[in-house]
Each structure stands twice: as structure tokens, then as C-alpha cells.
């Protein structure tokens, strides 16, 4: 194969690191969510690369499950953000660090 599996894994690691940095450094709750989605995508890429390398389809099947779970997680997380915003009028996570209200 022209492109080694290692290249895909390196790309997956770089994307995962960027996602982790986004989770730690951004203050907007929605941006934190989007960084989590970026980390999940990086994991999906690693899984599909290894599925192609080992010739088994279980990796691709697991990516299918991850996408489904990510969809439901995003729905519930955004619903929570919308509800919190109604009372606190802010989605800056510095203001949300206490579980009050």
C-alpha cells in the first residue's frame, strides 16, 4: 500500500491532541463539545486504519457504533447547555463550575 498505516495513526494522534487542547483551553461550552467531537473523529480514523491493516471488519463496525453514540451524546449535551443557558444566561464554563441553580 502506498500510504503506511503509521501515517494514518500519526494523523489521528495529531487531531486527538488538537481536540484535547481545545477541551482544556477554550471557555465556551459549545466549543468544548466540538473539541470532544474532534477527539472522537480522531479515534474513528485510527480504528478504520487498523481495520484496513488487519483485514477485519470489526474495526469499521465499532466506528459505526461510536458515531451513533456520539450523535446521542451531542443531542443530550446540547439540550443540557440550552437548559443551563436559560437560567444562567451564560455558557462560559468558568461561570458553571458550581453545581448551583
Amino acid at each position, binding site marked *: 500500500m502506498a500510504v503506511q498505516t503509521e501515517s494514518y495513526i500519526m494523523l489521528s494522534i495529531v487531531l486527538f491532541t*488538537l481536540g484535547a487542547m481545545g477541551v482544556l483551553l477554550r471557555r465556551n461550552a*459549545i466549543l468544548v463539545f466540538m473539541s470532544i467531537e474532534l477527539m472522537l473523529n480522531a479515534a474513528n480514523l485510527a480504528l*478504520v486504519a487498523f481495520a484496513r491493516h488487519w483485514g477485519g*471488519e470489526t474495526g469499521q463496525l465499532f466506528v459505526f457504533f461510536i458515531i451513533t453514540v456520539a450523535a446521542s451524546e451531542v*443531542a443530550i449535551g446540547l439540550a443540557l447547555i440550552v437548559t443551563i443557558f436559560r437560567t444562567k444566561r451564560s455558557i462560559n464554563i468558568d461561570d458553571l463550575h458550581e453545581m448551583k441553580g
Partner: protein
Amino acid sequence: MTELWLFIIVGALAVAAAVMMLLSENAIHSALFLIVTMVSIAVLFLMLNSPFLAMIQITVYAGAIMVLFIFVIMLLGAEKLGLADPGPIKSRFRWFTPVALALALALLFTAGISTLQGNIDEKTPPLAPGEVRVVNASNSGPLDVYVGSRLIASSLPFGAATEFTNFEAGQYIVSVRPVSGREVTTTYLPADGMFTNIVAYGSGEMPQVALVEQNFAAVARDGDTRVTIFNGIGSAAAVSLVDSRSLDTNTDQYVNTIITSIPASTSASIDTPSGEVNWRFIDTTSPSNTLVDLTAQPFTTHQNSLLVLTDQERGDNASRLLPVIISTTALPEFGSPRSIGFSLLTQFLLPFQVLGLLLLAGMVGVIVITHREMRPSRKIQQRRKVSRSLTNVISAQVGQDVSEEDLPQLPQPEPDTEPEPAS
């Protein structure tokens, strides 16, 4: 070479869009950059032989999840967040930035070293152990077949085949025992990833035995089907496979020869477009001698067929040549929707259904979380108990004013305002 360049371009696009997503001030811009990242990851999925997942990524991730993000950003009015974002001004969080950067560099360093030095590609995937089955195309009646000491076929009738069974490495003596007559033996060595057919063919009391290998790998072109042909004709003649409709009446030759020659007791395999075929097996030496005719023989996709040409004895010493066709379901192509659906509905049925329940629970949960009690409008409570004209009539009759000030009033709440941009 082009694949390497495509990978570099798409990978750089994914990383650049991810960086821009993190640095962007406007939340809508961040969402759009994330969509670019997801589409480039879908292109990478296509390069990794998984077209189904690429389409699912675009449809579900970029098409549904990110649209949901954009809905919520617009609903909360958070797209202008960056301008008012004070940054981590709280002193307790000021140590986040350098620690996060140091952790990121450490992760990149260690993961990069382990990936580049880890020799992922030196390991090859393990092959499945060799499998074998028995095909009876002989006229010796029902057969019992022993491989080693294991009985894998008992009273196998003409034209039937057993299921595949796998054997560990080693050398096995294959013993084919017809009902009448002595046994015929041969040896079998299982090899990893090889599918072997023990074909008993031939007329007469003692069957002849041959080992025919069948290739179950995916076909090169989608829609093709693979046919393995074994020449077991008793007259030991080499056959050719031609298209029966390509007979040129002038020269009496077949124009379209599919396989030039299959010598006796050997096999050949061919990938042909699926559908009905019009095949004719002719004697190689004398093309006008038609041995077996297969008109309108259907070979469907996703099937791997074994075709054994053999003699079938009928009464009074007459025999006719017969093809014995054993069809097996072929493995679907790697990464295609059919193969993933096959696994989802057989081996992974339980997780599939549990995920459906999870999505249902998530949907109900979202509705419950965001549900808001709608209190009735204030106007109903502010309406006078009695209309104004009637109060005038009453006060005229009673002689004093009917005043509403003494009536107990509910506290006046503030009216609902539109959501303001988050501060």
C-alpha cells in the same frame, strides 16, 4: 504516488481546519471548520477501503450532528462570543494554558516516537486455518470420507457436497470409501487460508479423487462471480470453454473462447459477470464435439461456484456428461455496505439493537430536559372580575364605588424577554 499526495493534502487540510476551529473567535466559524475536518476525514475513510463509513460520516456527523451544533449556537446567540470572551481571567485557572501545552507536546512526542519506531507494518494479519469439504461427483454411490481419523462425509449422494471443516496443520490421509468396492486414498495438507475440495469423480466402481482448490477472495470487479471448473471427464480429454452463441457458421469455429484448454483432472477458475451464461464445453482437439452444454445457466453475484464435469452412468452402459454445480455464498467485499450489514445483523445484532434503544432513550431524555412549563398568561389573572360597565351600574345602585384596589392581587412578575447574547 498519487495516493501519497492525496493523503498529504487531505491530512494537511484536516489539521489546518482543526487548528482554525480552535483559534476562531466566532463559534459559527468554528463549527464550519469542524465540518471541513469531518469531510476530509470522510475522504480518508474512502482511501482506507471503507466507502460505507465515509458516507455515514458525511450523512450523520457532518450532516446531522454539526447542523445540530449550528442550530444551538444560533439559538443561544453564541456566535459573537469571542468578542466578549474574557479568557481565563480567574486566577485559579491561569495555570491551564502552559500545562495543557506541555501535556500536548509530551503526548505528541511519546506517541510519535512509538508510532514511527513501533513497526506496525511488519506484522501481517493471521490467515484462517485451511478448510476442506467433500464433493461427490462419482458414480460409485454414496460415499463415506475420512480425513485422518475424522469422518467428514457419511453416505454422501451424487451431486451433493458437505460443509467446510477446518483442520490444523499436518498431513492427513484422505480415505474415500464407496459403498461397494475398496477405498481410495490420497493425502491432504491443510494450508492457512486455502479452501480445498475433495472431489470424487469418474464412472466405475472406484471413484477417482482429486483435490481442487477454490479461491474465496473477493472478486476484482463488483458484480462478478467466480466459477471454478474441474475437468473430470472419463475419456481424459481436454476441454475448452466457449460461448455457445459465438459459433461462426461459416468456419464452424467458436469465436469467443473463454478458456482455451482445461486438461483432464485439472481445474481452472474464471471471474465472469453475473447473470445467465451460455457456455459450452467442447473437446479441444475436435471443436465440433460438444461435451457439455450449459444454456441460460444463472450464476448470481455473491456466489462462488464449483463446476465439476463428470460422467453420470445411466442404465445399459449409457453415460452422459453432466456438470455438477456446487454454489457457496461468497464473502462480501471488504468495507462494502453488504459486509457491514451482514455483520451487524448476525454477529453484532445485540449491540445494534441496544444502540437503537439508547438513541430512543436519548431522544426522550432531550425532550424531557428541555421541556419548560408554560405558565398561563398574566392577562387572564389581570382581567377584572367584573366588566367596567357593570361596575358602574353596581356602584350607581349601591351608592359607593366598587374599587378593585382592595381586591387581593397576585404579584406582578416581569414579562418574558428575548434571550440576550451571553455575556
